[in-house]
């Protein structure tokens, strides 16, 4: 099963302060360990929300709200994608990450197609969605 590990933002990451050389080295080591164990599928860090935007959907045209956003703790500063046998295994890997006091990470399981089976027993919805995607893709290919 796959899990997304979300690293929450903090004041420093929002201010665009780069991690110390020590932390960067420790993180590099940790990533290497994850890769060598065949656990890490991908992982990225995000720029501060000042460079981002939010697009809010209302009754009319969507509104674009430029960053930065105030609630640092609710923001995402980076993520990993893990492939592991169990939620416990994912948690144990996260515990080994070289973060200091105050850091907060969130663990979320990634949906697999089978997960939708209870609400889509015949697979009809899944198939419709796939058809739509295929249309989108062939449309994009023709352009």
């Amino acid at each position: 099963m796959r899990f997304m590990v979300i690293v929450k933002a903090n004041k420093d990451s929002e201010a665009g302060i780069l991690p110390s050389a020590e932390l960067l080295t420790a993180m590099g080591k940790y990533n290497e360990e994850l890769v060598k164990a065949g656990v890490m599928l991908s992982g990225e860090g995000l720029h501060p929300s000042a460079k981002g935007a939010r697009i809010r959907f209302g009754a009319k045209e969507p509104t674009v709200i430029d960053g930065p956003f105030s609630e640092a703790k609710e923001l995402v500063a980076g993520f990993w994608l893990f492939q592991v046998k169990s939620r416990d295994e994912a948690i144990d890997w996260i515990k080994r990450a070289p973060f200091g006091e105050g850091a907060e990470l969130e663990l979320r399981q990634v949906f697999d197609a089978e997960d939708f089976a209870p609400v889509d027993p015949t697979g009809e919805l899944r198939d419709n969605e796939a058809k739509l995607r295929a249309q989108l893709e062939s449309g994009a290919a023709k352009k």
Partner: protein
Amino acid sequence: MIASDTHRTINAVWRIESPRLIAGLARIVRDVGLAEELAQDALVAALEQWPTSGIPDNPGAWLMGTAKHRAIDSLRRNKRIERKHEEIGHQIEAERELTVPDIEAAIDDDVGDDLLRLVFTSCHPVLSTEARVALTLRLLGGLTTEEIARAFLVPEPTVAQRIVRAKRTLAEAKVPFEVPRGPELAERVSSVLAVIYLIFNEGYSATAGDDWMRPGLCEDALRLGRILVGLMPDQPEVHGLVSLMEIQASRLGARVGPSGEPIRLLDQNRARWNHMLIRRGLGALARAEELGGANGAYALQAAIAAVHARAKTAEETDWARMAGLYAQLAQVTPSPVVELNRAVAVSMAFGPAEGLVIVDELMQEASLERYHLLPSVRGDFLEKLGRLDEARVEFERAAALTRNARERDLLLERAAATNRSK
């Protein structure tokens, strides 16, 4: 923390740490079976102590420390027994002395290659293929006997026995716990890769049973392959195999329909392919080629898989390139199955009549007599050429030969369709 939480944590720690633990211990005691026992002892100690003492800061190091103490005890005991034997005049084999080296030195020898040695030992040619698979999943994949049994649809006692016997065989054959060198290395690497690919394939298209795929096994094999890449970054074929598995795994979500029926590659909805895995696979292939391994058997198969992966739609597939890659593969690993696949590529590039020429030659091949894909492919060519009666016979023959229920349904449906389209 309540006890059950601790138990779950211990299980997770075990899953992550056991391969390294067993590998490190095997270097000290030079016996994979004994190493696993010692590691299990440490696990039992953790189960006894952690619920009350709490989980240590570095659980992996704790387990290793505990297991090493037991290893030392065991080696000392052995030495004592030997000395006793010496005293009463028994002859001791000279090599026995070598197998019990200076204990302290062995423990301090911090070599990162332990895992690699464990890989080569688990996949040693003295073992049967089934034993290599079971031992690899158990010692390196961290799977329980029950999980292995479930994955291969074999009774649990059979797997347990297989593992016990494998460990005994390794000990009796005095298989050295080491990474082979020189010309032997390439040969042994290919044995290791074969074991991993076998595990992957059993997950990718199960040879028996009601389910066509067991994705859990694919995940296990991929993980083993990714570990191996980390251990042997300079071996092009390791990258080739990982590339092949990543690209094939990218299609797992598109290979079955809602009721579990198989969907052929060209009919698959490519939007459902996992594009991250494709990217990873293409990256690994590029690495294999950079290392000079473009002509390796796995790299070539990965290159073939990549031709599919790069085509946005089935129609855009570069069949001429595919046929060329199969011709190359046929030179590296000549086999009727590769020829059969080449026939498919040739038929797509140059028409079903060209493909049929190759397939008709294969009809003489004794090794393919019971291979359901031969009549299945031949039926496909005949159907396209409008020779429907002949096509139906081939589809029915293929359906009778396959052991997979899902695939049989599909073939019988195609046979029935030849009647309808007349």
